């Protein structure tokens, strides 16, 4: 009896030590992954704090021996109209994100809840647009915008981004999880479809909307090629476009200043993410459930 108990204890100890070992291994793996993911940001941040002579050294300097935070950041703040670039970027990203949240959720609702002939083909057609790379559409799109007199306007930056195939896909996935009984009950009570969408479906969609909002805001905030083509005036430049002013064609780059600008450019995205973080994770999980 005692030997059985001893064996059980040993087995239990072995299992728990195995679990502990596995747990430690998993933790180490996660930490390693986190380091890999965070290191570029750390390096960018630390580069933005360094003086020029510590930038490109062998061996590399991981912690500045001399700090040039004020010099680097004040240079960025004084050499380019960064407040205007911020405002332009925020305006374009915010208008586009709000529009995408509305159009994607409405389209997602329609595709899921409304019986339309050929809607599946239409949906596939929308999804197929995601496979056409931007450079293919770039010049035709530019010509269309030229004809609409939208070149060199901020509207030209967001009017082409009021809808998102990815957003429609994401919201349709979530709409599948909304209990049909709730919607039917509203229909029985005489509510119109838009009213059902706005008053019942949308309040249930905060998580995927947060996820989509963060994704789309980040995407728009980082846009470079389209603003590069569309914007000529210095006053209308977005932040990524403004930051390239620190790059020259002479093979000389002030990395510490470029990184200071890039770090400042990250701030709004981090704020948006922190604000929607709780919903963001939930939204990603939920929309993946019935994919």
């Amino acid at each position, binding site marked *: 009896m005692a030997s059985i108990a001893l064996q059980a204890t040993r087995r239990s100890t072995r299992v728990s030590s195995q679990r502990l070992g596995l747990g430690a291994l998993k933790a180490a793996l996660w930490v390693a992954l986190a380091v890999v993911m965070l290191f570029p940001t750390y390096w960018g941040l630390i580069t933005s704090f360094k003086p*020029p*002579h510590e*930038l*490109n*050294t*062998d061996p590399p300097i991981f912690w500045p021996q001399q700090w040039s935070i004020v010099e680097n950041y004040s240079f960025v703040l004084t*050499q380019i109209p960064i407040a205007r670039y911020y405002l332009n970027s925020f*305006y374009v990203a915010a*208008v586009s994100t709000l529009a995408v949240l509305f159009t994607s959720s409405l389209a997602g609702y329609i595709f899921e809840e409304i019986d339309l002939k050929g809607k599946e083909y239409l949906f596939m057609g929308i999804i197929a647009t995601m496979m056409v790379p931007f450079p293919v559409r*770039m*010049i035709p799109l*530019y*010509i269309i915008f*030229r004809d609409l*007199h*939208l*070149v*060199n*306007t*901020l*509207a030209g930056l967001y009017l082409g981004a009021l809808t998102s195939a990815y957003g429609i896909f994401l919201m349709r996935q979530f709409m599948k999880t909304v209990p049909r009984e709730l919607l039917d009950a509203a229909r029985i009570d005489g509510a119109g479809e838009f009213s059902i969408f706005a008053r019942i479906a949308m309040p249930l969609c905060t998580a995927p909307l947060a996820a989509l909002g963060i994704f789309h805001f980040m995407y728009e905030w980082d846009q470079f090629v389209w603003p*590069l*083509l569309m914007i*000529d*005036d*210095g*006053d*209308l430049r977005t932040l990524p476009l403004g930051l*390239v*002013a*620190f*790059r*020259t*064609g*002479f*093979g*000389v780059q002030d990395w510490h200043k470029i990184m200071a600008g890039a770090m400042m450019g990250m701030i709004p995205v981090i704020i948006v993410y922190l604000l929607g973080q709780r919903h963001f994770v939930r939204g990603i999980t939920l929309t993946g459930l019935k994919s």
Partner: protein
Amino acid sequence: MTQQTRRLTRRESLRLAAGLAAGALLAASCQPAPTPTPPPAPTKAPAPAVPPPTQAPAPAAPTATAAPKPAAPAPTTAPAKPAPAPTTAPAPAAKAPAAAGKVRLKWWSHPYKAWNDELTRQKITYEGMNPSIEITYTVVAYDELYTKFTTAMLAGTGPELMGAQSTMTPNLMAGNWLAEAPKEVADDIKTKFFPVCVEGVNFNGKIYGYNQHIGGILPIINTEAFEAAKVEAPKSWADMLKLTQTFDKQSGGKYTQAVGNFPYTSWVPFVTWGTILKSMGGDILSDDAKSIALNNDIGRAATEEYLKYVHPEMGAENDTFGQGKSFVYFRGPWIKAFLDTQFPKLKYKAIPVLQGSKARIQKDYVWNWVISKAATDAQKEAGWTFLGWLNNVANQVSMVKASALIPTTKASLEHPDVANDPWVKTFVGELAYKTEYAGRISNWVQVEKVVNDELALLATKVQSVNDTLKKIETEGNKLLKESKVFV
């Protein structure tokens, strides 16, 4: 029947207000930004951004070996005749018809602060003297300038004036996007500008733009390191090879110190590798520019020599030179501002072009101002007049002081302020040994990219010299088949 007036609820009022605000915002954002009022033109030329070096470079010593006859006559460094002061250049009254209203010109270039500031100052001065001309100067990142320009030209929204490096110019020519200079402008350019510069805008005997500056890339040496090692600055590529024994240190396949740490990425490898190739008597293209001509013994020897100065494990060439780990590298005069700012203790100077086994030569580029073919006649006329004024002696000399970029007219090169500046003088003195950087083919940008990409793979030991040359030949010949050759 009584008419009932329905009052808006608070929610409806808010919705209406929000709708109106959104509509107004949308309408406002569709309008281009108002043109900012230009600040008054400064009365004084800006202080030179590039102070003279603390150590005056040694005078360019002629090479002992028989140097080949330069392609173009060397400019005399002594001031030939007094030139006008840089701040008092008169702006010609533009011939643009006043009756037609203001002539508006869009002008695109790339960012380099000292240069942009000076160009903006000159533009404002010109506008002040010619109220019928309005010029909008826009800076586009160098790497994206060509993409933005070609897209805009295809759509008909491009600028009337644009800066184009000599590598881009043949492509723009092939796209039929450039306006030919009127005869009097072309004659003026051919007469007044330095011959190697004019080559950058001369296609099939016609002139398609003004030259703003010439690259003027030279070897730059760390003078302290040479003094400490008690060795002289190299005069030839053979000297460079000997110096590797003095300076290069290798430990476990990792260079820690080297005479030269030449670049292996971006556009610069082409300059250094191309220079070695040319100085050994080789060339990239065949004489008719229809095939690659480097996959031979000279090409191999030149590439192997280039490899001796490429050490990716050392880090970026600007930094290793600045940190005193490498002692010779190739850069243009603009690098002074960077080195002085980033490495204030560094002692350095530019030295003359190195003599090769067959030639004393340096590959280079020219920066051009070109005019769009799509511009109206009035815009073209105003554009050529403005560019002519922009490149007068006073403005070019002023630009040298502000940015250290080497001017392109003979008179500017002979101006005392240019010819006597110790740093600039070395670059100017070596212009006779320059060869124009770009090819005469329409897709030169792509061919050069192939060369640079393959050299990068060679430098990082991904492929051998033979494979590199073979791939350049194969890929290059494919591109050359589609290319248009200009004379």
